[in-house]
């Protein structure tokens, strides 16, 4: 596997992401709307609650992780797009292992997600969130790993889907529960037992927990456990993606 090939393939997606100005603006503004509407909307009602931090500060790492989830998942739609417009054949006939194509896609997905996360983390302090800059830097690799694993799941779905509608349907079906049962919007302490079980089974919960722990110092699980589970998920979903993508015929 040649690093240069991965770089150029990933660069293609990022260039196109940055070139599509309308989509870019919408993508960057959406997470900020969450912080503004939900954060400031619920701030009074929630107070500092059990967590001991201001709700806006509490929410920002959750919204950052959410942005990674949505962005990485939907970036895999470019595979369906490439199939529809024929470019996929050019990729599949190229003399590079399929794993190279998958890795490039995972990297470009996490790079575009990181652009969104950076905007959230840079703007949030201006809105009054108190984020530890060093912690935020440490959270970046965790979010990258999480973004890569989500895009791997997206690639697995896209490899089996022939239409935009099919992809959109499955992805929406997957993405909603993953988001709502992750603790992105609420603390994990003292949840009803059934909800606590679901949340523990959801890999995203650990990505949120680590990011929040590193950025604002509030976390439920030990951070090394969080990181371990995020990496294990990445290994599992990455393998699955390579396998699905390799089986695909033009």
């Amino acid at each position: 596997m040649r690093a240069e090939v991965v770089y150029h393939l990933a660069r293609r997606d990022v260039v196109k992401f940055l070139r599509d100005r309308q989509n870019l603006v919408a993508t960057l503004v959406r997470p900020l709307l969450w912080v503004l509407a939900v954060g400031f909307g619920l701030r009074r009602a929630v107070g500092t609650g059990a967590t001991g931090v201001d709700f806006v500060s509490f929410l920002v790492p959750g919204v950052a992780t959410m942005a990674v989830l949505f962005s990485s998942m939907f970036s895999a739609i470019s595979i369906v797009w490439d199939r529809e417009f024929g470019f996929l054949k050019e990729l599949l006939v190229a003399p590079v292992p399929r794993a190279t194509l998958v890795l490039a896609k995972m990297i470009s997905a996490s790079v575009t997600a990181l652009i969104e996360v950076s905007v959230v983390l840079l703007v949030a302090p201006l809105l009054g969130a108190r984020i530890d800059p060093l912690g935020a830097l440490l959270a970046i690799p965790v979010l990258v790993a999480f973004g890569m694993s989500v895009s791997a799941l997206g690639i697995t779905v896209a490899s089996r889907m022939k239409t935009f509608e099919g992809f959109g349907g499955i992805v929406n079906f997957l993405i909603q529960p993953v988001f709502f049962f992750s603790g992105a919007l609420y603390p994990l302490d003292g949840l009803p037992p059934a909800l606590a079980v679901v949340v523990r089974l959801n890999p995203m919960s650990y990505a949120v927990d680590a990011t929040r722990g590193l950025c604002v110092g509030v976390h439920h699980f030990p951070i090394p456990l969080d990181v371990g589970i995020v990496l294990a998920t990445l290994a599992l979903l990455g393998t699955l993606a390579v396998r699905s993508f390799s089986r695909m015929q033009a």
Partner: protein
Amino acid sequence: MSPSPAIEVRDLSKRFGDVEAVRGVSFTVKEGEIFGFLGPNGAGKTTTIKMLCTLLAPTSGSLRLAGFDVTKSPEDVRRSIGVIFQDPSLDDRLTAEENLMLHAVVYGVPRAERRARLDEALAFVDLSDRKKDLVRTFSGGMKRRLEIARGLVHRPRVLFLDEPTTGLDPQTRNATWEVLRDLRDRNGMTLFLTTHYMDEAENCDRIAVIDHGRIVAEDSPEALKRAVGKDVVFVRTNEPAALCAVLAERYGLTPDRTEEGLCFRVEDGEAFVVRLVSEARVAVTGIAVRRPTLDDVFLALTGRQIRNGNSEAGRDAMRAMARRR
């Protein structure tokens, strides 16, 4: 060491559920040859190309390309080939240059050579001045030329072209063929192409006529046409009645009278015309010999005509048929 053939296919079959797209096809293509698959839509041309370029697994049969087994060493095969697909395969949200550069990197063109190769390929298809433009702003013909340029960037040993000039205007088609012949002559590249245009097939060294997934004939265009039938000879004269009598008595022919002279069918028209001119004592003012077209070949082999939109040879053959009736 004798060089292995560029392509060697034995008993190749492909089945999609109930559809037998390719049924036991065998053929060999030599290095540096221009080999064409001629057949109507649905004959199995694209399916064969997809199997040859590793995109589709055959149901049965063996495929070798540049000495490599296509099913066992797909990556070696992919390194040796270039493919120009029937359907569009560019990223139209990238510029022309970006499309070619990505291709050059992926196919391992050495970094120091990339610029030169890109410029050369773009100049080849006359797109140098548009290289910074997004492909989505290109016309259909320009996109096709760009795809051809892309297929050349890594200088493959074997270039596959699936209906390369379908949808192009006649001028662009001719220009494309100049490019393709030039490639073979200069670089000894092997070309495998498919077409349903008779006149396009004329450009090949050899053609396989394919119908319903089977090869029904395989030879040079000349030999195929010779095998099928006689040449059509037109003779212009001021004494048609006299010439008509000579043709009937001496050679047993029954020519048709046309406004300008006589028309008849005969084996090896050129040799016959030489004999006729020296033997007949009739003043002849003009002679034309038309060979049977590949349309005649396909008709003779399958009992059907290839449906071919705006092909020149097609129209000619239709006119010839109309005259015959």
